[in-house]
């Protein structure tokens, strides 16, 4: 991707889209522009005034005049210094605002996407977009446009001052510029290629180190020290050679710049000296040109830098906008339906679902994960879903929370189609308890409330007491304020589960969705969890992917899933009596818990 952007130069439409992020700050951009232009004018003004001073005051031995001119010059210098400070800071300020806007917008966009989006993209890639790709635009958005214009005008002002002083001498001085421009761009191109190679070698070296430090035990156990040392030396040497190649270009570039500048100086001395003899040019003018010749190179170098920055930013911009232009979020309804009384009735009616978004809804033989699944859970009742891995149990949960939209059928809560409800309303009333408790960094409290400020300490405390989680939380050295990622802080499996129950309980949903943990815990913990679950499920409709005997035994209804279809349904007693799939599952999977 980067090579593509490298070769095609600057895409103006893409650039326009980047620059559009500066629009909210156009007043500040304008101010930055004014300061950069003023500084660009003041910079060549100083040598001009020095020339005037030499030719008028110094040659005429006007001491007071000299003092006055020097005073003006110092004022100019101070003004230029001040302006360039303001400008440098202001451009960064604008750039950082725009970067902030872009980053937060991109983040919100990513977060809004449905799980379908996350299924197909590695998280690492998304992180790169939000962090380093956005960062790559910062140069363009901050210094970029303003600085390019500033440097460009600086060139023009310097040329203008030179021509006004003496147009023939100006032409002579500028005659070396094409060499300079050519040398600069040649150098930049070579260095860019060399740098690309260097970066590759650095990455190679780093990944070798990363891998071998992580797998050092293996290297040592298998006695590969000598061989790996040999390979490392090889990679290290390639890395060294790549750097030595860039040294060559730098070693060549700086003397080149100096040489061209000296050529300009030599020409000024020779041609300027001759003109001076014939009275065309004063000594002051000569001295001014000596200074201009030096100043002329800086903007050229900066411009070539900026050009490269622009090019590399394009690659990042393309990826960012590509992401912004992809929208796989769950569509929110325009006319949300009322959910008048939240009671908690759940209905699945002829639900067909596939993770493949392009599946043909009418094709019954396609790769369906769920095939014609229907069931109803009455308010306050509990449903246990059992079945083997891959039977479609988790999918049912995902669909109820509308992490995905179904292709056929309807899912209703209290009679309302869930696609007619705003997502936030639906999810507000459905509490999810996952078997792998995902702990965010932060305190125990943060993990329970998920930083929901509406939940006060008393609510949390009451819930923790009710669920029996207070005992272990109080034992933590900082209680609810304990950081869960702190070193040495390890929560047992049972404790982590209690935390996720607590998380659900404080959010007080009408419908509870449980993905029970498979891993066994000791009897004591099991009892605590059992009691907690009973408390949690009281007065709520619940759907559980059951791994516990007690869950299936106490469920009002059990759904036996097999290969995406409902095979059997009924209560524990009914299903045991009917001697089908459930009975065997029970014997093999749950009966043992009874024995224990």
């Amino acid at each position: 991707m980067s090579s593509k952007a490298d070769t095609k130069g600057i895409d103006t439409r893409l650039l326009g889209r980047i620059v559009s992020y500066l629009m909210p700050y156009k007043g500040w951009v304008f101010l930055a522009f004014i300061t950069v232009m003023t500084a660009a004018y003041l910079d060549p003004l100083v040598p001009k005034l020095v020339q005037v001073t030499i030719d008028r005051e110094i040659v005429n031995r006007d001491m007071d005049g000299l003092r006055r001119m020097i005073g003006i010059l110092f004022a100019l210098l101070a003004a230029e210094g001040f302006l360039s400070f303001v400008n440098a800071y202001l451009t960064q300020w604008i750039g950082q605002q725009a970067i902030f806007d872009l980053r937060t917008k991109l983040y919100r966009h990513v977060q809004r996407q449905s799980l379908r989006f996350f299924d197909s993209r590695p998280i690492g890639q998304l992180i790169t977009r939000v962090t380093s790709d956005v960062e790559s635009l910062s140069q363009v958005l901050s210094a970029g446009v303003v600085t390019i214009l500033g440097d460009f005008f600086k060139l023009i002002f310097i040329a203008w001052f030179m021509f006004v002083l003496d147009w023939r001498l100006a032409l002579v001085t500028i005659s070396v510029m094409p060499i300079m421009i050519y040398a600069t761009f040649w150098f930049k191109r070579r260095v860019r290629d060399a740098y690309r190679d260097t970066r590759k070698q650095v990455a190679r070296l780093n990944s070798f180190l990363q891998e071998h430090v992580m797998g050092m035990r293996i290297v040592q156990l298998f006695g590969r020290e000598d061989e790996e040392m040999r390979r490392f030396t090889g990679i290290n040497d390639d890395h060294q050679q790549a750097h030595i190649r860039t040294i060559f270009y730098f070693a060549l570039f700086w003397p080149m710049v100096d040489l061209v500048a000296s050529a300009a100086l030599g020409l000024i001395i020779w041609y300027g000296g001759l003109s001076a003899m014939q009275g065309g040019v004063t000594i002051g003018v000569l001295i001014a040109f000596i200074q201009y010749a030096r100043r002329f190179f800086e903007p050229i170098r900066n411009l070539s830098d900026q050009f490269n920055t622009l090019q590399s930013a394009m690659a990042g911009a393309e990826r960012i906008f590509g992401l912004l232009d992809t929208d796989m979020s769950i569509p929110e309804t325009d006319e949300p339906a009322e959910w008048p009384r939240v009671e908690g009735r759940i209905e699945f009616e002829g639900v067909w679902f596939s993770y493949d978004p392009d599946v043909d809804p009418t094709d019954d033989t396609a790769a369906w994960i769920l095939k014609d699944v229907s069931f109803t859970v009455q308010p306050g009742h509990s449903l246990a879903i059992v079945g083997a891995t891959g039977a479609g149990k988790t999918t049912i949960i995902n669909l109820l929370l509308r992490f995905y939209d179904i292709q056929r059928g309807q899912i209703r809560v209290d009679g309302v189609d869930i696609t007619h409800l705003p997502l936030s309303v639906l999810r507000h009333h459905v509490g999810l308890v996952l078997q792998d408790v995902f702990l965010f960094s932060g305190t125990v409290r943060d993990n329970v409330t998920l930083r929901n400020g509406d939940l006060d300490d008393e609510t949390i405390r009451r819930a923790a007491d009710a669920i029996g989680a207070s005992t272990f939380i109080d034992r933590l050295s900082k209680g609810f304020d304990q950081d869960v990622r702190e070193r040495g802080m390890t929560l047992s499996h049972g404790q982590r589960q209690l935390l996720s129950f607590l998380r659900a309980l404080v959010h007080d949903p009408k419908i509870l969705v449980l993905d029970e943990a498979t891993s066994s815990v000791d009897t004591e913990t099991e009892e605590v969890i059992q009691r907690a679950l009973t408390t949690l499920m009281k007065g709520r409709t619940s759907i559980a992917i059951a791994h516990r005997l007690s869950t299936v035994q106490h469920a009002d209804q059990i759904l036996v899933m097999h290969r995406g279809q409902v095979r059997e349904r009924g209560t524990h007693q009914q299903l045991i009596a009917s001697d089908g799939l459930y009975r065997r599952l029970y014997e093999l999977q749950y009966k043992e818990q009874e024995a224990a």
Partner: protein
Amino acid sequence: MHPLRRLNTYYWRYRRLFIPGLLCAVASAVFSIIVPMVVRQAIDSVPRFVATYRAFQGTQLESFVYADAFATLAVFGTIILLLSLGSGLFSFLMRQTIVVASRHIEFDLRNQLYGKLQALSHDFYLKHATGDLITRSTSDIEHVRRYIGPAIMYTTRALVVILTALSVMFWISPKLTWYTLIPMPFLAVSVFFVARMVHVRSDELQQQYSSLTSRVQEALSGIRVLKAYVREESEAVAFDAESSDYRARSLKLAMVEAAWRPVFVTLVGASTLIVVWVGGSLTMTGEITIGNIAEYIIYVALMTWPVAAVGFVITMIQRASASMIRLNEVFDAQPSIPFEPHTEYTPAIEGRITFRNACFRHADREEKALDDISFDVPAGSTLAIVGRTGSGKTTLVEMIPRLLDVQEGVVEIDGKDIREWPLETVRTAIGYVPQDVFLFSDTVAANIAFGQMEAAVAEVEEAAREADLLENIVDFREGFETMVGERGITLSGGQKQRTSIARALIRRPRILILDDALSAVDVNTERTILGHLRSHFGQRTVIIVSHRVSAVQDADQIIVLDEGRIIERGTHAELVERKGFYAALHHKQQLEQEVEAFH
């Protein structure tokens, strides 16, 4: 001893580059210092030519005088060009020697560091995070390199330029020189402070960048929870706060970076103006010429960078010292289990393993990981170890290849204390399959042959067959040459585990250790692999750690560990009879197998 003293040996090693390099730095500086003198000569010659020209105007000599001026000025111009050529040539050579030498030293340092890392034992890696060690071998070495190369180069050049320029300037006019120099110390000091603040603030910015990244990482990893609890908005607000903090720190950095240009513009500009002011006054009294003013203006320009370099170099040295201290920590670390090569006098290992009252406690723990462990595994027999997570199984098997050493008691191989065997002899005799599979980003073949360098293709295939991996590999498009890891295909957990087993098997080891190495393969595959292993029974000592009864039931002896102690030992039949931990495990897994059979 100053941390950077360690580098002296390297300077000596590359003296053939450093000495000519420093001489080139001197030569380059001298050439560039002569340029302003030529400019002064040229400018001062102009009024003389004008006077002569006017005197001879209208006479026959007019054209002769003009030609003389033409030639003289052309010579001045050419001399300037030649001087610059000379200076450029030497500056080119200077970089090509000194900076290249710094890269050589970097290369040596990094090799030395990696070599040291390979020699250090397991306990060192428990104390140091991977990321930390990577930083040391990359950016810390880079900081040191900048001190070695650029810092020394700049210092030399700066010294020569400043000293030469100053002597010439003082010789011309001490008074003007003193005045011109006034802003210079300010320049050096400002550069030093700005550079240091830039470093401090970029480090702070970098920290916030990591924090921002981990925030995104976490939110996206837990996206299901966030969505289920409708926390998107509050998470987005939290992300805004991180972004905003990042912006604030960027701007703090921008504030100091914005100071660069004003510092240079005003201080260098001030020097130039002082030259014009004081120099102008001096020309009025005739103490100096106008040409001297031009000369001084160029001197000021020439001295700017060297003076600023003083400020840079000081920060470079500070950073390099800090980095070198971190590097020295690694260089000075001693391996707790030092490498000893295999010698021809060492007898071959038969494979008998004996633990006598072995105890071990991890550094940061109170309770013992292994407590009074004793057993004897005759050469060629099989020992199985079962027990809960955290019961000490892995710690126990890590004693055998000496990843760890016992603190009390003794571990013996063939009746001799393991610490009396050369480390290489012990490790060569062992094929180890660790619990966490670690493969390198290389081909499948290379990963298997990692266990046995110079293994023939047939041997790699045989090892893959024994690990029941051959069929999978044949299915890969590039077969054994398929890359695994980031740059290649992602192997499934079971495939990885089997590759790791093949890597151990290709060694044809006297002692094979399988630390829960079959957890990610299904029961059928496990049976196949165990069947292959069984064909070597009698010739190979096997230590097998597992959660599955099916994997351990044929072992000659089974020990059950709990909290670092052996709570049961015997054969499968004996242990089932005892109705203890092992029997319960056995019962449970029988049921599980039936469930799997059902589906």
